[in-house]
């Protein structure tokens, strides 16, 4: 009994699955850190748990009470330690942040910079990091409530990541080695360039890497990784740096390996449409290249001007055309990846069908750079069809949007190429914050907007089909109003409204972004629940790929605030988990959701993932602290 108690101590301290929940027979596995909140607030009143406690035998009761007591003791200790650390931080930060704030008084992003000033001092002194979205004043609130143990904020928000001691720090020998391999120009230590490379697109995460490498070939990548593996130097593979979950920027001082210089198109087969290119090719450039040849990329996203194909493949990017062309798992025919120890895995097949052995490329697609760095991609591109039609429609309620989706899939069938939706808040945001955005339906404000695109080979036939579908939907009351684009300019202005939403959200202030896969019928219930929960604190904006049952839930507020965050997390994840949805439909886990994988995957699955990670990257140098939970120490 004592041994078990000790072992429990160890696991509980690390933050394992909540023992109480297991004891209560709960099916959802919640991390202990989250569960402290649950435990304090609901276990006490939970009839099931109460019932079990009462019904079970005396010894079991004692065990359970012991566990509860231990849980609470640990929590108290933890909070005491937090208090000590944060007071020290506050003292150090106060002088620095005043200076920084004065310097950054005129910059637009003053909210962000106050957060980043905090992290800069932290990482300088203590190897601790808090997500940059934390407002410094929050700590004061947390401290006062620490003793009351009602403090839910710390548990779910402060995901303190500790820099792994097994990683070495860069020294001048390393720099000279890299210079000897890559040349002077491609070893970047310039502060300004590093500042951009260290910050993610959302400006929520900022690392403190001192070195950016720009290899030009797979051999150079292989040499770099072999060296870093032997020296235990952590690395972050980076492409266009357009990721939304902090997966493309360093957490501490990892070396950034940016493959942007590897941007050659290697081969293109005009008959089959198979494109082979290097990982640093920007998506928009590939689209223009293919345009000349009469083909089109199977994926399309708002970030296409900056995102690179290597990153798209590593994160299994979805995008606007997934409903027509399917995911990258189906379109990528092969890839070449470099493993952590420098081994080059050449799986660059250009065959449509190849059933020889285990198809390992699927491991790398979506691995977010944690299993290997993708250096070349071979992708199947569909032919460019001449007739593209797009309609922007208005619906009065969510039920009509759903029915419209069903009708569209049936009546438009094979020519449907995109089905997106936005709600009234999203449209309002786009019109107010996006420059050059024009309301396609200025006559009145509607509750929901749906964007339907069709791509086919026969202009008049497609137009007829689309107009017939729209007419019947209008007569059926599914659509209250709509416009059909008459030329390509009008079509791009419709897309501008939808594709510009992430940009508009950033301009509107602080943005909490969630990307969830949920059953279509239930999707909007979450949005309405969040509106009730947040009340006047923040705006809930919803849009997404309705055709793929993918909701992009965004909460927009003037400033980052933990009150808001506490209302959102972990409620959103629990809600999604309850409906067996995915907490990250296409954005990936990155740093933001690294510890949240259990909401969507079972512990055994995650265990196997960890084993694979340890097999391919035993020293854990590839993109550490991301994707898999920190407690499992992958």
């Amino acid at each position, binding site marked *: 009994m004592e041994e078990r108690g000790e072992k429990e101590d160890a696991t509980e301290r690390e933050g394992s699955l909540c023992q109480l929940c297991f004891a209560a027979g709960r099916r959802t596995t919640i991390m202990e850190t989250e569960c402290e909140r649950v435990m304090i607030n609901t276990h006490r009143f939970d009839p099931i748990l109460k019932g079990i406690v009462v019904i079970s035998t005396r010894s079991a009761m004692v065990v359970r009470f012991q566990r509860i007591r231990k849980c609470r003791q640990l929590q108290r200790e933890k909070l005491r330690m937090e208090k000590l650390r944060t007071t020290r931080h506050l003292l150090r930060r106060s002088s620095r942040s005043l200076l920084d704030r004065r310097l950054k008084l005129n910059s637009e992003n003053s909210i962000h910079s106050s957060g980043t000033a905090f992290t800069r001092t932290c990482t300088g002194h203590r190897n601790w990091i808090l997500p940059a979205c934390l407002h410094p004043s929050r700590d004061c609130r947390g401290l006062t409530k620490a003793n009351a143990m009602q403090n839910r904020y710390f548990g779910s928000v402060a995901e303190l990541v500790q820099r792994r001691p097994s990683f070495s720090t860069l020294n001048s020998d390393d720099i000279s080695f890299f210079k000897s391999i890559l040349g002077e120009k491609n070893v970047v230590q310039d502060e300004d360039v590093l500042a951009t490379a260290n910050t993610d697109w959302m400006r929520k995460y900022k690392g403190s890497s001192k070195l950016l490498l720009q290899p030009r070939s797979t051999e150079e990548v292989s040499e770099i990784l072999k060296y870093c593996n032997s020296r235990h130097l952590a690395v972050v593979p980076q492409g266009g740096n357009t990721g939304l979950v902090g997966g493309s920027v360093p957490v501490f001082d990892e070396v950034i390996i940016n493959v942007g210089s590897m941007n050659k198109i290697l081969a293109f087969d005009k008959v089959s449409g198979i494109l082979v290119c290097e990982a640093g090719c920007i998506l928009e450039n590939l689209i223009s290249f293919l345009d000349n040849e009469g083909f089109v990329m199977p994926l399309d996203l708002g970030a296409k001007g900056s995102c690179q194909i290597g990153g798209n493949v590593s994160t299994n990017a979805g995008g606007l055309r997934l409903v027509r062309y399917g995911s990258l798992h189906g379109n990528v025919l092969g890839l070449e990846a470099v493993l952590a120890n420098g081994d080059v895995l050449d799986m660059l097949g250009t065959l449509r069908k190849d059933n020889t052995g285990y198809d390992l490329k699927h491991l790398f697609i979506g691995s977010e750079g944690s299993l290997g760095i993708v250096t070349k991609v071979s992708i199947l591109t569909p032919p460019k069809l001449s007739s593209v039609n797009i309609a922007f*429609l208005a619906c009065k309620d969510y039920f009509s949007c759903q029915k419209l989706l069903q009708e569209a899939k049936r009546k438009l069938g094979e020519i449907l190429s995109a089905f997106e939706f936005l709600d009234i808040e999203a449209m309002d945001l786009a019109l107010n914050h996006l420059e050059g955005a024009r309301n396609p339906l200025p006559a009145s404000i509607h509750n929901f907007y749906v964007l339907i695109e069709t791509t086919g080979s026969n202009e008049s036939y497609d137009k007829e089909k689309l107009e017939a579908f729209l007419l019947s939907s*209008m007569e059926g009351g599914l659509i209250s109003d709509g416009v059909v684009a008459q030329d390509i300019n009008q079509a791009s202005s419709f897309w501008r409204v939808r594709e510009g939403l992430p940009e508009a959200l950033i301009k509107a202030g602080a943005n909490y972004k969630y990307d969830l896969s949920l059953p279509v019928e239930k999707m909007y219930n979450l949005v309405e629940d969040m509106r009730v929960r947040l009340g006047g604190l923040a705006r809930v904006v919803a849009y997404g790929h309705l055709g793929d049952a993918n909701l992009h839930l965004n909460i927009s507020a003037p400033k980052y605030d933990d009150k808001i965050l506490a209302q959102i997390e972990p409620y959103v994840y629990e809600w999604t988990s309850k409906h067996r949805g995915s907490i990250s439909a296409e954005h990936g886990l990155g740093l933001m959701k690294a510890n949240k994988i259990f909401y969507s995957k079972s512990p055994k699955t995650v265990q196997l993932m960890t084993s694979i990670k340890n097999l391919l990257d035993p020293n854990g140098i590839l993109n550490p602290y991301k994707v898999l939970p920190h407690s499992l120490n992958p």
Partner: protein
Amino acid sequence: MKIMVAIKRVVDYAVKIRVKPDKTGVEIHNVKMSMNPFCEIALEEALRIKESGLATEVVAVSMGPAQCVDTLRTGLAMGADRGIHVEAARELYPLTVARVLKGLVEVENPGLLILGKQAIDDDCNQTGQMVAGLLGWPQGTFASKVVLDKEKQIATVDREVDGGLETLCLDLPAVITTDLRLNQPRYATLPNIMKAKSKPIKKYTPEELNVEIKSDLEVVQVTEPPKRKAGVILSSVDELIDKLKNEAHVV
């Protein structure tokens, strides 16, 4: 008062055009065609005038092969009341178009003829001026603002000229050609698209209007402009001087 708007079906503005291999013209075979952007602006202006009550009817006119009817339907979907299609198989040049328009004006008797300032496929910028000359009507070209006065039967037009903005007063009936900054054309809404299906489009042939399709112009060759050469990064001032002297011949 009736307003007549002339519309041209051209290659879509956003399409990347390619020259035909035999250099006789541009690839238009499998390429998206739509209404000339300036003609859209012209139609939008006509619709706004009608909506403000100063006109009773807007008639859209187009000339060319059978597919012009699609462009006319778009015009009807935007809000025009009637369409007129003049069948012509061969390519039409501005003077011929002007003669056809004159014939139509004599049939329809509009109070105002609005056109786009130029078509984006030939960039001629001639039709509006030629029609005004043939009809003997006043013309306000490159209009960036149009204000009608029904009582006095005049139109006040702000023109965008090289030196700035020029304001003219025209007696109606007049010819106005529209420039980019006049307005932003509306989208064709679904209800209007459905209504447009039942609006009439009348067909004419050039013979009925006493116009002979002949041209004094002949396209000899169409070639792409020379490709822009990539810039060169030089490493010293001496090299720069050398290049300026010997290659560019400017020093």
